[in-house]
């Protein structure tokens, strides 16, 4: 018997969703909430990558450096990510996004990241003297050419002392890549001046006497012992491979975040209950099934949010609540169609069959348009919009499964073979009595 199969699957589904729902209440894998719901600071930096060849590489090491730095300050669960903006709009801009949950003092947060020094090695141009003579305000870029050797190739910095004068020095040791690059630069440009530039200031500008192949260099900048020590510390924590500038910052107080989260959850609960009442009153037995399918939709979605994980923001929650309303759309279309077939005098079983198969086309077409919208929204994406797009898009996909497959299985499991007036009433809806 066909309905026997549906009954077995239905029971299995109920057990699975019951278990999933139960596990949801246990804190196996916590939800990830956005800063606007837990409070914290988000900083968006624009990275100047005009001087680097391998942008992706430089951004990666920039990310690592900032991560090290943020971790050092003991912020819990910071997020550091890079973003390539404007691929479509043409002007390629590289961004670094730093999210610091719990940090609500923006100055502290900016300072925490901003202190990272940018160290560069640059060759002085042959006509440097003329340039500075002609233009006393000549910038570093005017006088020096980039060599590509920067702080990202540094393996370690140490405080040293000049054996003759006892003046403090900063000793640098490059990593393998840096050693090769440094050796190449010093071999090819013997006799030229290689300036060591920190945060745009020339620290020292020694003449290259000989090729240096061991990857070691020294900065003699007339440091005091304390300055040398600070510089070494900053260099070791990470010199930035590319300069960055703060373009956007956002701080949200913890209390504001918590109340936004509570309000969002409450709105979801009330919305669900009101929706369930409507479904059951208007669509009767199928409405009850749709409500069960909706519960399974909510359980599945929440699990997907946990597993991916989707960062839930206020807008993301709104998207999810909206998707709860949209998830039952397919059910509404199916049940209305079923009623039409019942009116034509078909049996309950046949009508349900027709309802599902005839409504499918319009369900498919309208969901495709929602997915198109979600994809474009995701592309538009700052974090708030991305959260909305993701919950909306996932919602459409998951609801296709729950509203169609799950509710179909349940309905056919309970669909009666016989056709009494009362049974027909149960499967019809609205003001239609028979």
């Amino acid at each position, binding site marked *: 018997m066909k309905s026997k199969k549906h009954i077995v699957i239905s029971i299995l589904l109920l057990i699975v969703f019951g278990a999933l729902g139960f596990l949801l209440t246990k804190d196996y894998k916590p939800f990830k909430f956005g800063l606007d719901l837990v409070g914290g600071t988000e900083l*968006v930096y624009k990275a100047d990558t005009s001087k680097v060849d391998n942008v992706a590489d430089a951004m990666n090491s920039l990310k690592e450096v900032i991560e090290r730095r943020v971790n050092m300050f003991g912020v819990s669960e910071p997020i550091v990510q890079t973003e390539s*903006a404007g691929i479509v*709009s043409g*002007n390629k801009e590289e961004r670094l996004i730093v999210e610091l949950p719990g940090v*609500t003092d*923006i*100055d502290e947060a900016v300072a925490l990241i901003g202190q990272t020094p940018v160290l560069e090695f640059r060759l002085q141009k042959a006509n440097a003297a003329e340039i500075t003579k002609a233009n006393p305000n000549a910038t570093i870029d005017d006088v020096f050419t980039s060599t590509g050797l920067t702080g990202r190739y540094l393996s370690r910095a140490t405080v040293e002392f000049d054996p003759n004068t006892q003046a403090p020095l900063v000793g640098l040791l490059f990593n393998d890549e840096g050693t090769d690059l440094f050796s190449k630069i010093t071999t090819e440009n013997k006799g030229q001046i290689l300036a060591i530039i920190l945060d745009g200031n020339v620290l020292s500008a020694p003449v290259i006497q000989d090729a240096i192949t061991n990857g070691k260099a020294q900065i003699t900048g007339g440091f005091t012992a304390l300055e040398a020590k600070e510089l070494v510390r900053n260099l070791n924590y990470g010199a930035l491979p590319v300069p960055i500038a703060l*373009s*956007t*910052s*956002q*701080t949200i*107080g913890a*209390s*504001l975040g918590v*109340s*936004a989260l509570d*309000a*969002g959850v*409450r*709105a*979801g609960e*009330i*919305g*669900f209950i*009101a929706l369930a009442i*409507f479904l059951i009153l*208007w669509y009767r037995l199928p409405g009850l099934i749709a409500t069960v399918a909706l519960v399974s939709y909510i359980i599945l979605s929440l699990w997907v949010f946990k597993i991916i994980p989707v960062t839930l923001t*206020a*807008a993301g*929650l*709104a*998207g999810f*609540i*909206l998707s*709860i*309303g*949209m998830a*039952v*759309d397919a059910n*509404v*279309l199916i049940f*209305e169609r079923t009623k039409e077939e019942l009116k034509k005098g078909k049996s309950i079983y046949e009508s349900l069959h027709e309802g599902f198969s*005839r409504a499918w086309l*319009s369900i498919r*077409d*309208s969901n*495709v*348009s*929602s997915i*198109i*919208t979600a994809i*474009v*929204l995701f*592309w*538009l994406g*700052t974090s*708030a*919009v991305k959260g*909305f797009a993701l919950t909306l898009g996932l919602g459409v996909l998951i609801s296709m499964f729950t509203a169609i497959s799950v509710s179909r299985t349940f309905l056919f499991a309970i669909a009666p073979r016989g056709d009494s007036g009362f049974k027909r009433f149960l499967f019809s809806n609205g003001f239609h009595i028979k």
Partner: protein
Amino acid sequence: MFVVKYRKIFFALSALLLALSFYGMFTYGFDLSIDFKGGTLTEVKYSDVPPTLDELNTKISALDLGGFSVRPSGASNFIIRTKELSQNERDALTQAINGPTASSTIERQNTIGPVAGAELKSKAMKAVAVVVLMIMLFITFAFRKVSKPVSSWKFGFATIVALAHDVIIPTGIFVFLGHFKGIEIDLLFVTGLLAILGYSVHDTIVVFDRVRENLKINRDTNNKEEFETTVGKSVAQTFGRSINTSLTIFITLLALFLVGSGATKDFAFLLIVGIIVGTYSSIFVASPLLVTFQKLAR
């Protein structure tokens, strides 16, 4: 079906609303938030008796930060909008708005550079255009098998008119709200518009799908029926479900609007307006338009 028969009345109603929206856009302009023009937004919360709006205005204007606006938010919060502030200016602002009768805490502070804002603005407009175009292409594709008596791109075009309708009227309403209530056009607003686009087309598809089906039945049964009658029949058959699918969303949105967080209140309101306008346009604009197109082609 009265919807198709009296379509000119409904077209006129839509035209009136559209005209009002354009009137609002051109006379009041868009009140853009810092998302799009850059600047700093500071929300401050007072623990005791908050200062009056006038007191705050005087204090902030003493800082000489250029143009700014202060808007009360809730019982003890104020939202202050200024140009993009440097660290020193931020500190000065925090100092100035603190006390004397109540201590203050900065609830949130957003700073967006003018470049980032401008970029987002162009991206947002592109996003709306891309969604509209993609949906039109999709509808044209989905209805490609329909050719008589109206070609499939006309289904797509009618959808676009309805979509434009659904974007312009809520925007118009928000322009009026912006002028009288200080609601700003921010990124969430654009997000909402895009969500309306994606949703409004649902209802349109439901009706069009039925038109498609009825045309096929007529063909199979060799039933010579006026296109106008077919569309009217299709609208009548799907009327209930168009309303009900919107109603389910309306219910959840209403909950979001009434008890949801302040951050998404305006957003929920926009969506509610959008759902209502979108449902209206699917039934009263998009489908009757098909008939108009078919009559024009003859």
